[in-house]
């Protein structure tokens, strides 16, 4: 009984988890600007999905610090305005790195990069007609070598992660 209560409490915490950007004003600003254009709609279980995806990305892609926001929306990211909004939200510190736009899946993935000490920080915004993800992550040197080898493949992999 006690065990199931703990599990229920843990599950509730995950489902209601406060989005990761809450304590980071800069990330919150980026997410705010992107989600306003995208007509953000939060969905039930968002906290759990973020926790699960974040765990996978950290483990698989050599990410040391990760901030993530996932939300539903109803704006096509294939219009030029979406990319302008993301570029403005990223700010002058981030430089464009990879852009993958697919008409087939109606999906756009934009990745910006900036040096952070001896590491690289990436801002990933990926969206299709129904959902979007915003991630800011610090990449470990070994993982960054994989990004250098095949940037577009890594962009797709991170989006799927």
């Amino acid at each position, binding site marked *: 009984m006690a065990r199931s209560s703990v599990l229920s409490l843990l599950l509730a915490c995950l489902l209601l988890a406060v989005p990761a950007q809450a304590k980071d004003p800069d990330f919150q600003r980026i997410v705010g600007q992107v989600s306003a254009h995208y007509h953000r709609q939060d969905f039930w279980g968002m906290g759990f999905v973020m926790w699960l995806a974040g765990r996978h990305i950290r483990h698989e892609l050599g990410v040391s610090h990760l901030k993530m926001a996932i939300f539903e929306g109803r704006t096509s990211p294939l219009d030029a305005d979406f990319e302008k909004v993301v570029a403005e939200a990223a700010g002058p510190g981030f430089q464009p790195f990879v852009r*993958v736009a697919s008409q087939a899946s109606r999906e756009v993935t934009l990745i910006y990069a900036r040096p952070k000490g001896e590491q*690289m920080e990436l801002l990933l915004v990926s969206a299709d007609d129904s959902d979007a993800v915003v991630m800011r992550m610090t990449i470990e*040197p070994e993982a960054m*070598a994989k990004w*250098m080898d*095949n940037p577009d493949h890594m962009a797709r992999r991170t989006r799927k992660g």
Partner: protein
Amino acid sequence: MNLSHFRIPILVLALWAPARAQSPRLQIQGLEKLAASASEVVDITLDGATLRMATQFLGEDKETKGIVDKLQGIYVKTFEFEKADAYSKADVESIRAQLQPPAWNRIVGVQSRKDGDVGVFVMGDPDQGGIRGLAILVTGPKELVVVNLVGPIDLKKLGALEGKLGIPKIGDGKEHRDGKK
């Protein structure tokens, strides 16, 4: 005053000036109109501080590091199409028009009905000698790739960059990206 003495210097200047005036950075915005008909468009941009930083992450690959260290920018744009012949020669004219002598010279040209055409172009450096920039144009039936490297490049070592940093493998002239021909 006899102007004939100035003919040769003027001719040399006329040939030399375009290579100095034109930037090795290609203007590829003209291709954006193809995005609507492409099934996928990929842009890779590495320049400025990001490129400097990225060089440090190339691991033990000293040959690649040696090339990238000297570059000012790496730009790759790829269009993939569902159907063959989804774009015309005129669509690529904005790129070809820039890759003209005397500023640019084609050093490799492979034409294939099946796999498309591959052209490798270099912009010489009149001041320092060597090369100021390089462009690779791949025009396949279902694919269009523009690679632009800005900065001094040792052509003998260029092969080290193939298949890295979003640059397709050129090899024997047949472009094969991500292991597929």
